[in-house]
């Protein structure tokens, strides 16, 4: 499916939703309104949302700890997302999961994961089921650059390759795993190169260019859907926010580096594209921003006004009947 104007507008809407949501989360964490921790994807909106929008009904995705953007991309309702982050019974996971476990199965969202690389097995299994039942679906497995250094990555790519499983390994290379720059964590310059070791094709793309992300991911998904086995996408992007709420000093990188990437802000770039191509005018974009902000404020209220889960929920979900 090519990128219609309508789709571009939806993409923009989602990217703005993710950005405003996360800015709100950042504020709320600073004010200690929220328990636990969080990992913001500010600066990575084109990657997460562009990729998710290439999926269709029946497709699935496994998410990382840095998952809000991906959640929005897959269509999670901000109300339930926020309620979960407030630990409320109306949350996506009834308050049992929290930020690192946001899950929304009905939208194909197999869950964020607190274990770096933890989604690999889930993705392979979901893809295995599609393969087993000869369904024409794919699984998008989101990974960070850091996750590609876990042993499970190796085992997963090899197994997906030899079993020809429909998985798109979508690596959001934001250049850091907490404090470690990719130049320190691997000797190869592109994570894409790692796919060769398994006879898997790879694509490297500009993860801050939403249009590029969508188009190239779309053809990759197509390739996988047609039964050609897995593919690896390396989406080069940057984490503008700190690693998590605890990452305050950020001694591991320079302000210049951050600024250089802020200049490549994916939302600004999409805005420019939209305006240049007359897909919408600046009024309309502003309106979107306002509407999204209203939605988020409403969602915060919804979350805050929801009830805490009661203790009897604990035993309800450990085992299935």
């Amino acid at each position, binding site marked *: 499916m090519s990128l219609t104007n309508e789709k571009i507008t939806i993409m923009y809407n989602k990217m703005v939703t993710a950005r405003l949501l996360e800015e709100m989360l950042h504020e709320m964490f600073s004010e200690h309104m929220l328990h636990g921790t969080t990992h913001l994807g500010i600066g990575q909106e084109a990657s997460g949302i562009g990729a998710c929008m290439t999926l269709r009904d029946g497709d699935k995705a496994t998410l990382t700890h840095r998952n809000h953007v991906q959640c929005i991309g897959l269509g999670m309702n901000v109300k339930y997302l926020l309620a979960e982050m407030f630990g409320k019974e109306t949350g996506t996971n009834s308050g049992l*999961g929290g930020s690192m476990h946001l899950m929304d199965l009905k939208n194909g969202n197999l869950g964020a994961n607190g*274990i770096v690389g933890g989604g690999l*097995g*889930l993705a392979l299994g979901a893809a295995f*089921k599609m393969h087993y039942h000869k369904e024409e679906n794919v699984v998008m497995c989101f990974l960070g650059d850091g996750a590609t250094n876990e042993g499970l990555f190796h085992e*997963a790519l090899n197994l997906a390759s030899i079993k020809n499983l429909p998985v798109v390994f979508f690596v959001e290379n934001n250049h850091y795993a907490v404090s470690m720059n990719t130049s320190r964590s691997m000797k190869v310059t592109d994570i894409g190169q790692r796919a060769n070791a398994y006879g898997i094709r790879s694509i490297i793309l500009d993860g801050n260019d939403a249009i590029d992300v969508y188009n190239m991911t779309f053809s990759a998904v197509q390739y996988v859907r047609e039964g050609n086995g897995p593919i690896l996408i390396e989406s080069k992007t940057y984490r503008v926010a700190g690693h998590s709420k605890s990452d305050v000093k950020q001694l591991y990188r320079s302000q210049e580096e951050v600024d250089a990437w802020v200049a490549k802000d994916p939302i600004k770039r999409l805005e420019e594209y939209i305006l240049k191509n007359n897909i919408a005018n600046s009024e309309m974009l502003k309106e979107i921003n306002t509407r999204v902000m209203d939605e988020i404020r409403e969602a915060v209220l919804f979350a805050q006004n929801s009830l805490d889960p009661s203790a009897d929920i604990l035993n309800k979900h450990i085992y*299935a009947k």
Partner: protein
Amino acid sequence: MKEITYKEALREALSEEMIRDENVFLMGHDIGIYGGGFGVTEGLVLQFGEQRVIDTPISEAIIAGLATGAAISGLRPVIEAMFSDFVTLMMDNIVNQAAKFSFMSASQACVPLVLRMPAGCGTGAGAQHSQSLEAWMCHVPGLKVVFPSNPYEAKGLMKAAIRDNNPVIFFEHKLAYSSIGYVPEDEYVIPIGQANIMRKGNHITMVSYGHSVQKCLMAAAHLKEIGISAEIIDLRTLYPLDEATIINSVKKTGRVMIVHEAVKTGGLGGEISAILSEKAFSYLKAPILRIAGKDVPIPFSKTLEEACVPQIQDIENAAKRLMRR
């Protein structure tokens, strides 16, 4: 009734469940034409094809990971670790993914998977191929843990495990594989969570599971000759524990010993002892005894290997000691 081995009993259960439900599949290394490290899956690839009896590279972690994902998606994987010692490589996917998935997602999905693992010592395979690690698994909420002691239980529990909607860790004892026992011709399932009184008795209760149950039975036969009547409880399921059956027996006998091959410290014996202290304290006529593996890695030498885990004679001696208290 027919007489078959533990290994055959497992194979029958796998085969019958695969016929009954096309979502059941097997995965592991060398489970296809090779038939598995201990021959349990022999012939199944010919019966069900390579789509359902799936050989993998030596990649334990992703086998467990894939199984979790497949289970969440509606399939019913039965995976094999060639030796239970290699579960060390699967721990993250079992403990942090499979066991917690239903809970963390508030039941958006469940994880009906079975992990089969040959456990225990006695084959001279050395410290890295002889462990009994079931206690770890019982310490992980979200898992169920079973350990059959004979062919009848092996078949009935395997069928229950496959039909269960939760991750079930299924231990098999290497020395049990070629043991023979009666198994009904007709279909049957042994519910998870129910212990079985293998032998009735009045003086002492022996709580055991897995291959050690066989040793208890032999010890009990000898003890009978000297007038000690032992009741033997075969736990069958290690988590959730059938506390009622244990407690009722102890109420009757007042004397109890727990027998297992796993290392004593941190083994399941401690858990059972504690439960009895909490719930049957006033019925106890003597201290609860644990007859368990020594706190040592399993050595290669045959004589030393035998010295590390409870033997029939150790059980008898302990029973006599218990009667004297």
